[in-house]
């Protein structure tokens, strides 16, 4: 019985949210605000869940975890952001959080994001018995160097008017970089369609099809709400 009501609720909510694309209407606003309220409550609930299992759970295990009192206090400093006089106290909590996140990323980025990528870009430009491999390697090297050149903003040779040899090579590399990126973004565009259509298919298969009667009822109500919104607009 509970599943039936739930199935109906799910199908109705989905149809009313989709009705927005046809026309912004009251039922869409209802569904949207139900979503915003539940989402906010859910994120608080899961934060409590995480706190319970990381901070309080660990401290219950023994003295060596009692240093976790400090982040709890730092976290509570966030509440000072509401006060006119003591808003700056929140900066201590935010600061520690920002610093730890930044440090973890900044210390490993040189190897993970830069050196490993440089190594992967160094490819043999002549592979004896494999012309396709040679062509692929040339293409990868040129597009990578072109892209890097394109994203350098404050160092650039004179390109207007009589551009010297450096200017010509720079312009060639930047053009290769642009067109190389267009291939990447073309792939990204096609895959965006795959993902977004996949979302719609998933919803139809998992929520709307099993509760077809609920979907129909919701569609009828949505049409009424849209008609009401269109008339109210005139």
């Amino acid at each position: 019985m509970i599943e039936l009501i739930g199935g109906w609720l799910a199908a109705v909510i989905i149809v009313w949210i989709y009705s927005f694309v046809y026309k912004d209407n009251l039922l869409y606003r209802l569904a949207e605000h139900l979503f915003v309220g539940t989402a906010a409550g859910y994120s608080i609930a899961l934060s409590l869940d995480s706190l319970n299992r990381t901070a309080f759970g660990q401290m219950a295990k023994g003295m060596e975890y009692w240093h976790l009192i400090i982040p709890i206090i730092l976290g509570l400093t966030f509440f000072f952001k509401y006060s006119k006089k003591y808003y700056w106290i929140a900066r201590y909590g935010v600061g520690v959080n920002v610093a730890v996140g930044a440090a973890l990323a900044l210390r490993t980025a040189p190897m993970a994001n830069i050196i490993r990528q440089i190594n992967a870009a160094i490819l043999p430009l002549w592979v004896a018995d494999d012309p396709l491999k040679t062509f692929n390697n040339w293409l990868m090297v040129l597009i990578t160097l072109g892209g890097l050149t394109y994203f350098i903003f404050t160092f650039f040779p004179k390109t207007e008017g009589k551009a010297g040899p450096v200017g010509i090579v720079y312009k060639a590399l930047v053009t290769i970089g642009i067109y190389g990126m267009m291939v990447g973004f073309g792939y990204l565009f096609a895959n965006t369609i795959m993902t977004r259509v996949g979302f719609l298919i998933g919803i139809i298969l998992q929520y709307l099809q099993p509760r077809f009667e609920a979907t129909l009822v919701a569609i009828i109500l949505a049409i009424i709400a849209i008609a009401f919104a269109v008339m109210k607009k005139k």
Partner: protein
Amino acid sequence: MAKEEKRRPFGMAQVIYTLLIISIVIPLLNPVGLPIGISQTTKDVYNYIENTLPAGSPVLIDLYYEMAARAELEPQAAAVVKHLFEKNCKLVFVSTITYGPIVFELLKSTAPDLFEGKQYGTDYVFLGYIAGNEPAVASLAQSIRGTIAVDNYGTPIANLTMMANIDKAEDFKLVFIVSSGTDTFGWYVRQWYTTHNVPLLFGALSVIGPSIKPYVDAKQAIGMLTGQRSAAEYETLVGRKGLGLASMDAQSFAHALILVFIIIGNILFLATRSKPKPKEVKKK
């Protein structure tokens, strides 16, 4: 200021939306079963798990996708979990985003056959949601017991039999990141591969695949599954018909419709662009 209200006729966009919905619902109601090939990138992942990954090895799986992304990522997760369970690997599920517990329960309810004959606590565990983003991933890498006290259901980690010799990154043979975001992959590349040298497997949305391909090409991950297409291919390889395969026909019809729209739209555009626009000249 030009006064005539140039409003697009109400129906145009809405007609297109309705055509899109129809192009998806029809093949879903009666699937045609169009053929799909298996791409090499998916085969590489299958071969790694089949041949290189030792049987019974511990694998961490981070479920980091929101509910909308279930269509693309749940079938991937289900197909790979089936393959890992066939090699009776020890699966440690975790989630560094709040949706994790929802999508884990939904995975178990939509694919119960995967977990048949598998015992919670000895074959798989679910550590639940851990806040913190990259710091959470870094802490887990150093020590699971040092980060959380109990799993998602309140059982102390020490009481979970399979977790006896699983605690830090080095104890895992593979980390499977199923994420609808982009940053998650960067976190694991920096905090698990760069720092602890643990092999990574990416499970990404189609839209995210291209931008994290450089990590895979630089051998910082053993491979990647990209969206519903890879899910359908992997389902074929492990012989489990799931949402991936069921969606392929509808994907083809929808793609055909959008391709037609793009081509017609651009033909009209080229036609209008070649002759000067009379409307422009008159208005000035």
